[in-house]
């Protein structure tokens, strides 16, 4: 009797142990496959970036070898960039300043124009405001590069060619629609009763905008501000077309200038590229959470 009970119990227990072991083994297997896949992915992601760092650490003669690792790594190229020690780089810090100036102006104007428009549309419910939000949406889905040629001609007739403000105008034009999109989506989560009670207390629209709307919109302001800043810093085509003199150029235009020379100094170029890429990288990782939240709030744009 007891033997049969034991056998009855022990058989399922034994089978369960075996099943658990195979399940665990399968889990290890999938985990191992996942790790292997992850490593492949890291190689895929890092390769062009590794190439950038590798070339920037090489000397000019080492660039033209079959090395896959810098044979004599040195930061000499970075020193050349920082001290403007090459004729393509003679205005590097001035150009860096231009990029910062454009970035700051685009961020400020995008936030200002975007919040004012969304306040008028979403909070004050101006009649036919939907027309304006549709106009913004339309701008958002038109590729900027398709408007580049007429835009260039128009800037010439406005007398703004080779002027940083023409670039600022272009980039505000293409960053603000995203801002309006995000602001009006985020604004829906702020109760309209706040505005109404302030109105009853006699607050003017401008007071409501500054005292209630802007503070409540802070997270969306960070998301859109980061977006606008990165767009202005990273954009190339309009800056290339609109800025031509060395003193008015921004960093990306100056960087692409290197390609014009017959035997490009690739190590200086890659060092410049890294110095140029570091600020947006830092900003990106600092505001990553907010940016991702902004993207998934409804707007999606590269």
């Amino acid at each position, binding site marked *: 009797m007891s033997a049969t009970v034991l056998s009855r119990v022990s058989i399922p227990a034994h089978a369960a142990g075996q099943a658990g072991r195979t399940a665990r083994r399968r889990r290890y297997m999938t985990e191992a496959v996942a790790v292997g896949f992850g490593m492949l992915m890291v190689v895929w992601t890092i*390769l062009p970036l590794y190439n950038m760092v590798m070339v920037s650490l090489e000397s000019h003669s080492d660039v033209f070898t079959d090395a896959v690792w810098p044979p004599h790594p040195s930061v000499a190229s970075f020193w050349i960039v920082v001290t403007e020690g090459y004729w393509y780089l003679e205005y590097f810090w001035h150009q860096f300043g231009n990029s910062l100036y454009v970035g700051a102006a685009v961020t400020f104007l995008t936030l200002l124009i975007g919040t004012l428009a969304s306040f008028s549309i979403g909070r004050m419910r101006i009649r036919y405001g939907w027309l304006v939000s549709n106009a913004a949406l339309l701008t958002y889905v038109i590729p900027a*590069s398709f*408007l580049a040629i007429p835009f260039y001609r128009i800037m010439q007739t406005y007398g703004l060619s080779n002027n940083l403000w023409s670039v600022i105008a272009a980039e505000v034009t293409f960053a603000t629609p995203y801002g309006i999109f995000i602001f009006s989506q985020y604004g829906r989560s702020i109760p309209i009763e706040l505005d109404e009670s302030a109105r009853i207390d006699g607050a003017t*629209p401008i007071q409501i905008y500054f005292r209630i709307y802007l503070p409540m919109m802070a997270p969306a302001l960070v998301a859109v501000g980061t977006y606008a800043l990165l767009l202005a810093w990273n954009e190339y085509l309009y800056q290339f*077309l609109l800025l031509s003199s060395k003193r008015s150029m921004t960093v990306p235009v100056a960087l692409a200038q290197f390609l014009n020379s017959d035997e490009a100094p690739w190590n200086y170029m890659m060092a410049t590229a890294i110095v140029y890429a570091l600020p947006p990288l830092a900003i990106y990782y600092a505001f990553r959470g907010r940016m991702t939240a902004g993207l998934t*709030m*409804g707007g999606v744009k590269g």
Partner: protein
Amino acid sequence: MASASVLEFAPHAASQASLWRHLRGSLKGSEYTWAIAFIVPYVAVFVTFVVYPACYGLWMGSSPALYTSLFADPIYQDTAVNTLLFLGIAVNLKMFCALLMSGFFMRRGWWVKVLLMIYVLPWAVPALPTFISIHWMLNGDWGLINNIFYHVFQEDGPSWLNGRWLALGSAIYSHIWKWMPFWTVILLAGRMAIPQDLYDAAKVDGASGWRQFVHINFPLLANLYLICTLLSTIFTLGDFNSIYFVTGGGPANMTHVLATLGIRDAFELAQPRLGVAAVMSALPLMIPLVIILMRKLRTAEVQL
């Protein structure tokens, strides 16, 4: 007499007053002025920098003669084929891989989070430096790829940028490398928004991973995936950098897409009208996409 004039005047005054009331809605007079003042800056930006250039562009590209010379140009014919290939392959491959990758990043564990931080690097770094880096990396003589190839196989690799198809493939590779992380993050957010209960219920019912995908993930992600694909198609159509810096349209102008050909015609050949015409020839593809997207995005907050 007096009453008649009142009768005569009243409808006119009333209609003006009602139009005024209609326009300002529930806003008081001074508030309406503010509302107008707040919206004017954006309207001004839109009219000056979108409507005016767009109309100017339409006017520049309005002559039919432009299109006969454009379509007869063999470079343009190559470009049209390249653009369609670039769109068809780059967009679909990128979105499909992004969908798979977003599934991978749903895994738990600290190392997956670290991996995600590394994985988004291509998107976080500006496009220009990385495309220039890829351009040099694919150099047939001294590029990193062929150096590795040589060390592994003791043989010279192909010259990636010297033939039309390899060069176009390289540009597609660069585009996917740059933009896949972005769409992965979007689709990952879409997956995260699916309530965990659904997976739990499916597990109780004994659904396998594949059946979970077919019955839960796919129906709930389908709309997002569609919007992302359409949006990505438009953005890819306007992608200038990944062609311009990786292949430069070369060799022998065989790898241009419409975005780069327009700029080339306008600024290298100094024929802006031809450049506009090249860009405008994408309108039959673009207009339906824009219309569908506008409809989808207007209601997007419900789905996303």
